[in-house]
């Protein structure tokens, strides 16, 4: 018998675990449903049941020769290259930086940082140029949203400049 692929098994068990966690969470919900006799716990219970069933089904597939019609594990068979950890990390860093910066440094700087990090992740070596591009792009978006759509976006550290410009 073929050995099960660890990632497939891990994902299958995660679905199963998620189902069990939802079931536990559901048991703490009220079942009082009023007139319809369906409380707020019925839909979560069905969801939990479905996830447990599907997790078990996926685990069975993983243990009996692997998921059916699975995507090939060999990147070359998919026409791709090997997992590039740097790209994955830089894109993640960009998104996390944006989360941390948007309410402190403001929208424009946060988006510029995101832009530069993503570009770096996709193989660009010109970090300063990319940051400048991102800054211009974010500034245009910012002005468009604030001026034309009246959507407030956080100004953050650039508040003195924007304040001076009458925005």
């Amino acid at each position, binding site marked *: 018998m073929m050995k099960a692929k660890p990632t497939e098994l891990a994902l299958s068990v995660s679905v199963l675990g998620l189902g069990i966690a*939802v079931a536990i969470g559901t048991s703490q919900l009220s079942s009082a449903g009023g007139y319809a006799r369906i409380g707020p716990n019925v839909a979560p219970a069905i969801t939990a049941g479905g996830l447990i069933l599907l997790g078990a089904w996926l685990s069975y597939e993983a243990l009996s020769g692997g998921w059916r019609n699975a995507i090939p594990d060999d990147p070359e068979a998919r026409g791709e290259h090997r997992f590039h950890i740097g790209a994955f990390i830089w894109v993640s860093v960009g998104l996390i930086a944006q989360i941390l910066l948007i309410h402190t440094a403001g929208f424009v700087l946060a988006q510029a940082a995101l832009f530069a990090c993503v570009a770096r992740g996709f*193989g660009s070596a010109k970090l300063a140029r990319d940051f400048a591009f991102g800054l211009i792009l974010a500034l245009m978006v910012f002005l468009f949203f604030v001026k034309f759509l009246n959507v407030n976006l956080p100004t953050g550290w650039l508040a003195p400049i924007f304040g001076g410009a009458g925005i």
Partner: protein
Amino acid sequence: MFETFHALLHGFSIALTPLNLLWGFIGVVLGTFIGVLPGVGPALTVAMLMPLTIKLDPTGALIMFAGIYYGAMYGGSTTTILLNTPGESASIATALEGNLMAKKGRAGPALATSAIGSFVAGTIATVLVTLLAPIVVEIALRFGPAEYFALMIFAFTTVSAVIGSSMVRGLTSLFIGLLLGVVGIDSQTGKSRFAFGVPELLDGIDVVVLAVGLFAVGEALYVGAYSSRLEEKIEQLKGSLWMSKEDWKRSWPAWLRATAIGFPFGSIPAGGAEIPTFLSYAVEKKLTKHPEEFGHGAIEGVAGPEAANNASVTGALVPLLTLGIPTSATAAILLSAFQNYGIQPGPMLFQMQADLVWGLLASLYIGNVLLLILNLPLVGIWVKVLTIPRPLLYGGILVFATLGAYSLHQSVVDLVILYVFGLLGFVMRRWGIPVAPAVIGLILGPLAETQARRALAISQGNASVFLTQPISASILAVSFLLLIVPLIVQLLRRNK
């Protein structure tokens, strides 16, 4: 029939006002521009451009969305033909022959047959939507909550279990969507569910955040990790854009056959444009007088699937507008756009907000014409868009995509959720779990729950209500068979 014609004329009088025409025009151009970007499919395009409509009245906004919807699809096929990176599964069939035509220096006719075919199929399908919608509305007005619930279950089954390569993975995606749909305050009892004390979660998870997370963030993580270091090869746009007499002769029948295949698939909630495009490809391959060209760039192989895609996507507006049931990720986002304006599509919409519905339908005709006029002349610009270096392109995509998610509630929590969904999207893409069922599950799950409760409130808690009413019982039976039959077939095969 006459009433429909009259209503449509009235619709044109709304859609043809200069301002609404302008919104339609902007929608088509922006939709195409964003849709051309490699890696951006129609669902993401609509989600990304949603904030732009904030200031418009509902009618203008929906007219703009119709333009975006069509433009995004057209832009996607340009990318598919010139770059061979299908932005969505419904474009895979086009990629087969379209890219080969481009490789042989026939990119012009490939783009032309795809544009004109989309116009022909889109227009015929729009006529069919116009004729069919009022009839469906008549029927739907007699539907009670039990029938709606059954229809939603049917939609769940088709989008998750019938299409795609694995039923269990499709259903897993659906149930993840259903789980996300449960989060927040329960609309009937006011109890909070799975919000973990986070106030931002009480309103529930927005379908736009999920779609942007899966389609933009997940895609960027995936492409970055697995194909950012590959060389891109864009086919040159050489020679004439025009189709020869021979091209026309071979394209026409393919467009019409594909429309006949695509429309029914879109209009019954049968899940997505993927099946009809492949079906059309197979039909054209079988009927062609030039079988030797298939696999080397046969024009029918582009004309058919492209037309089928457009007909099916247009047909999907029937269940969306008349029943409020989306059958694709893009339709799910359109539904959420409706909801943002406080509009719940369904039969009542045709009666309560006739101006809006008919204005929207009329704008579909206009959108098709605009696309035809704009796209072929502007194809040079779209080709330029394709040459944007990947690092800058993805940087830009994420800047706009995260903006789309952030501007909904101006909440950092949404951005955190967005990143989590991005990781989820990466995993799903890598291990072949389809994402569309999750998006549909998220938006349709709570609606199905509401309908089930209404049905049970009417029957005073008697659950047999779903099975004693003939319409709901038969829809549920069909859904059940769709789930069970493939499993039985599988079991029988194994025992042989």
